[in-house]
């Protein structure tokens, strides 16, 4: 009976958590899309400030990581393809796996580490120092003030970063293609473009928008759930990273399965 009861409790807690995320997301969406028509102005300057931090700040590390992933994919792909004398296909193997899967995923994981955790730490600290209370007592909704700009920034920047990561991944593949598989750079790029369909790119971008929403919701929600005391901020930050990675992968699984089914018909 004990394990069943504990399983039930954990399931309920998990569902409550997802409910909390959805509620937060919906409220943020209300302030983004409906609020402006009801005299609650959008905080564009805050959103742009966040977008700079989320997007531009992530470029150097994302460039390096996605380039390396491109090289690794090409090397691993070539290892198998060479057996069949199909080394030519290394460009399409890299292109498709990067745009459909790894580009969005790597981007999401970099952004979780840089921004999702920062959201949790920022809001958590504000909770501990009563700044959230101060906002509320000034009749300012913390969701409108803090969360909506973050959602907008993420929704705009994650697809951009994903396109950048896709490109860098392909360049990484090209490095191997040119040095190890007898391509010229020009030919590698042309082979990549021939292999790619628009659908590959759009599925990746749709995923990235959903990832962005997930990361923001978890980061902000964990921030708001911070208890009293500075050590709680650390706990929320860690929890936001772990939960975001798990949820992003879970969402990825759902969407990949969905696109697979849709793609067959």
């Amino acid at each position: 009976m004990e394990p069943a009861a504990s399983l039930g409790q954990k399931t309920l807690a998990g569902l409550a958590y997802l409910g909390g995320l959805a509620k937060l997301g919906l409220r943020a969406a209300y302030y983004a899309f409906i609020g402006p028509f009801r005299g609650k102005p959008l905080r564009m300057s805050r959103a742009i400030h966040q977008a700079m931090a989320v997007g531009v700040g992530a470029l150097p590390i994302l460039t390096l990581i996605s380039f390396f992933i491109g090289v690794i994919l090409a090397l691993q792909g070539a290892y198998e393809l060479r057996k069949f004398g199909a080394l030519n296909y290394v460009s399409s193997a890299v292109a498709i796996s990067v745009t459909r899967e790894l580009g969005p995923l790597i981007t999401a994981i970099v952004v979780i580490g840089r921004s999702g955790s920062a959201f949790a730490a920022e809001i958590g600290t504000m909770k501990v120092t009563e700044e959230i209370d101060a906002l509320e007592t000034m009749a300012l909704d913390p969701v409108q003030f803090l969360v909506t700009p973050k959602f907008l920034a993420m929704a705009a920047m994650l697809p951009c970063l994903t396109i950048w990561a896709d490109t860098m991944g392909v360049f990484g593949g090209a490095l191997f293609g040119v040095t190890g598989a007898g391509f010229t750079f020009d030919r590698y790029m042309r082979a990549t473009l021939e292999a790619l369909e628009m659908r590959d790119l759009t599925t990746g971008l749709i995923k990235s928008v959903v990832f962005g929403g997930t990361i923001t919701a978890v980061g902000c929600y964990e921030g708001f759930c911070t208890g009293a005391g500075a050590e709680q901020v650390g706990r929320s930050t860690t929890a936001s990273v772990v939960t975001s990675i798990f949820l992003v992968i879970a969402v990825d699984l759902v969407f990949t399965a969905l696109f697979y089914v849709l793609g067959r018909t």
Partner: protein
Amino acid sequence: MSERTTSPSTAPTDGSEIALSVRNLRVSYGEREVLHGISLEVRHRETLVILGGSGSGKSTLLRALVGLAKPSGGEIWAYGVNLCAARPAELAAYRKKLGISFQGGALFGSMTVAENVALPLREHTRLEESTIEIMVRLKLDQVGLAGFENYRPSELSGGMKKRAAVARALAMDPQILFFDEPSAGLDPIIAAGIDHLILNLKQAFPMTVVVVTHELASAFLIADRMVLIDKGNILAIGTPGEFRASTQPRVRQFLDRVAETEVTGETGYLQMLTERRPREYRND
């Protein structure tokens, strides 16, 4: 001095004499009830000091009065609205009439002092930027922080942070100003400076002030009336003079700063176990 409040009249407050009317307020955190049916009235333009030891529930009472803690029972009437059942718009309208100085200041770390003070003005008014700038300078001048506009909260000392928080609380010309532990964490001289700031503000602006504190000296200096809270109940309400003359044992214990009975040795422990505590201050 009244022995606890008599239950207030059932007629809603007309707003002329009474700023806030609290009736049988109960607040719980989870299973634990922190306030067990508090009833009190805050009069217009008075300085009411809520006194109490650590864990007495005084901060919770303040949080309930500004709508941050959700009561589990009772009513708080302010400007014709019961805050415990208020719609979000009504609560927002009430909050625009308040200024709150939080214990640690709660200034926004990402903004300068001037931006902190300007925030409510920018959000809730359509004033021009130049007007806001002048108002911010005025408010900072009132709390003695002229010239610190462009400092970040992290660059200010504890006392200055409190002053900046007061300036922000004053930004919207509040009708009720709340202070949560205004002298907590400050040395006696700086703390006295904050007390005088409160007195000066009262002289300059006719507003209702509610202060939560455990500092006796400060309470006697600034209060028109005082409330002593103990273990979630009101022990006594009255003027500072009435408090000084009080003979209630628990009130005296608090005012004379007598420690809870300390246990020394075996006999003392036995005594503590068998001793009947005085009943007078258990008002229920």
